């Protein structure tokens, strides 16, 4: 068994294992996120959503996958063939690669880069290349307009989002994603409470960067058919859709790591609240019980079987989380299993708010989008970085406490934001001056 030992202890073994797990799990996760989106949309619009394939539509992602893979893959005439083919792959690869630096748990990370945050931002920004190339190569006006809108929008909002990330970085003092989470453990507070304005700006910018409603102008169906995806069909269209969801997971992970405490449980340093560790297994137990309770009510035998299968999966997850509780409190495995649960829970809550906003707000007009980005978010983000830097100086040099200093920084930023927002608004679609 010496060879097996050698393989397991090879420095590349764990990263490659994690990478393979990510690549295998991610498409499934994306499929179910789409189902989740449709179910939430249905709930908010007082409908049922997909109900036919599997109990409560639980097998809909698999059916959709098979259908889309069998669909004809059309390449428009006079399209730039190989760029058209390669564009969705570029976008999807960028999203997947960015996930390599994300720490899903204390030990579950493909690579702990020294410049992890910059890496994630840089690589996920490569994704717009696929969008712009795809839109250009389609040889269609709608696609090109969608691609140009996407480029303008992402370049604008990346500035605001980047500045918001800097405000978190100043508090954490490192670019490594793992160390950022450890810094939040050390301070005893998630950075979302220390820098709420930074979190808010990053949230808005991340919605805009992933082309989600209300900023989904690149694919506004009432104006541009489907924007840059108009000419795509079949499996290439699926890759674009998966890339969009993968990018949402990436921005949600970055926000979770930087502002929401990463894999940390709520109140991770308060020993009196240790009973929160029992929450994950209990949650899965409740889910399993609900699925078992619904099983006899399914109309067809096979639906009963699928429901029971999902109940067993929940039961298994509850067992795994419960088994981790029996391990000693400082064991790496327990930290990894529970950390993974909290991390994914936060990512899902972040994505839920994406969906919530999508089904609640109407779409922006393009000039409103640009004005919000350049004239409001970017100045506020810059002021916020300055304020947080000054607050950290006050803390180091003048001996202020963490909370008063950060409260002052937030107050100053909010005052500037109120002053910016209160300025006299002039509709940008009117010419700025007669004949101007």
């Amino acid at each position, binding site marked *: 068994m010496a060879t097996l030992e050698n393989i397991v202890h090879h420095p590349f073994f764990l990263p490659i294992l994690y990478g393979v797990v990510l690549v295998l799990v991610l498409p499934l996760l994306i499929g179910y996120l789409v189902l989740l989106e449709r179910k939430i949309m249905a709930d908010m619009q007082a409908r049922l959503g997909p109900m036919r394939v599997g109990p409560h539509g639980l097998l809909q992602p698999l059916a959709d996958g098979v259908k889309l893979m069998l669909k004809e893959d059309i390449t428009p005439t006079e399209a730039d063939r190989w760029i058209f083919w390669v564009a969705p792959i570029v976008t999807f690869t960028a999203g997947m690669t960015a996930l390599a630096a994300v720490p899903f748990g204390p030990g579950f990370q493909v690579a702990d880069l*020294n410049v992890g945050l910059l890496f994630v*931002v840089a690589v996920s920004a*490569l994704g*717009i290349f696929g969008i712009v190339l795809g839109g*250009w190569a389609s040889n269609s006006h709608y696609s090109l307009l969608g691609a140009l809108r996407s480029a303008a929008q992402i370049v604008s909002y990346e500035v605001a989002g980047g500045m918001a990330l800097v405000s978190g970085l100043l508090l954490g003092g490192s670019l490594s994603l793992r160390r950022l989470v450890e810094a939040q453990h050390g301070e005893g507070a998630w950075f979302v409470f220390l820098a709420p304005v930074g979190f808010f700006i990053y949230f808005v910018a991340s919605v805009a960067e992933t082309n989600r409603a209300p900023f989904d102008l690149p694919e506004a169906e009432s104006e541009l058919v489907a924007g840059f995806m108009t000419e795509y069909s079949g499996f290439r269209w699926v890759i674009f859709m998966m890339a969009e969801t993968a990018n949402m997971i990436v921005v949600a992970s970055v926000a979770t790591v930087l502002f929401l405490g990463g894999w940390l449980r709520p109140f991770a340093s308060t020993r009196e609240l240790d009973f929160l560790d029992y929450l994950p297994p209990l949650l899965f137990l409740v889910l399993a019980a609900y699925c078992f309770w619904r099983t006899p009510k399914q109309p067809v035998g096979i639906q009963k079987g699928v429901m029971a299968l999902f109940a067993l999966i929940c039961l298994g997850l509850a067992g795994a989380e419960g088994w981790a509780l029996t391990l000693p409190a400082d064991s790496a495995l327990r930290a990894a299993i529970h950390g993974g649960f909290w991390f994914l829970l936060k990512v899902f809550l972040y994505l839920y708010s994406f969906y919530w906003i999508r089904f609640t707000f109407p779409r922006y007009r393009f000039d409103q989008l640009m004005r919000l980005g350049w004239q409001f978010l970017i100045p506020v983000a810059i002021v916020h970085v300055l304020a947080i830097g000054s607050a950290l100086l006050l803390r180091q040099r003048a001996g202020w406490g963490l909370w008063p200093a950060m409260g002052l920084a937030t107050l100053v930023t909010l005052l500037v934001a109120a002053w910016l927002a209160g300025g006299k608004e002039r509709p940008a679609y009117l010419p*700025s001056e007669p004949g101007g």
Partner: protein
Amino acid sequence: MMDLVIFYVLAGIAVVGAVLTVTRRNAVHSAVFLITALMATAGIFLQLRAEFLSVVQIILYVGGIMVLFVFVVMLVNLDVALRQVQFNRQKWVAGIVVLGLAAQIVFILTIGRTQDPGVLGVPPTPADQLSPNTEKIGMRLFENYMLPFEIASILLLVAMIGAVIMGKRRI
């Protein structure tokens, strides 16, 4: 061995991408190959454990080429560009510049071969024993090279203001 293979693959991609950038007729294809070459260079930086440099290479050039790309789509009439003469006639000037650059590279390589740390001022270190260098770049930039850094910032600010003035006649 592994290091050599990775290096030659990345270097090959960079060289082929650079050649294709020059020889493609379609400006969009040129932009795509330029990105390929620059990404391969970023990979070589990463292999040298210059993580910060590598990531900054990606961020800056992606942003820069994105703008270049949009300009190509908006301003260059591709159908006309396809029929125009692609190379101009200053081959001799280009040849002399290339020879000069090649001589410089050969000179640096021969110095590097002597293994004398005093010549380049940097003792050779195996790549996996280098310490993380992001903080060091920041310290150097803001302690030793503060004035050049600020001059570069002012240059960029001037360019930005100039662009706004040129783009908008009445403010």
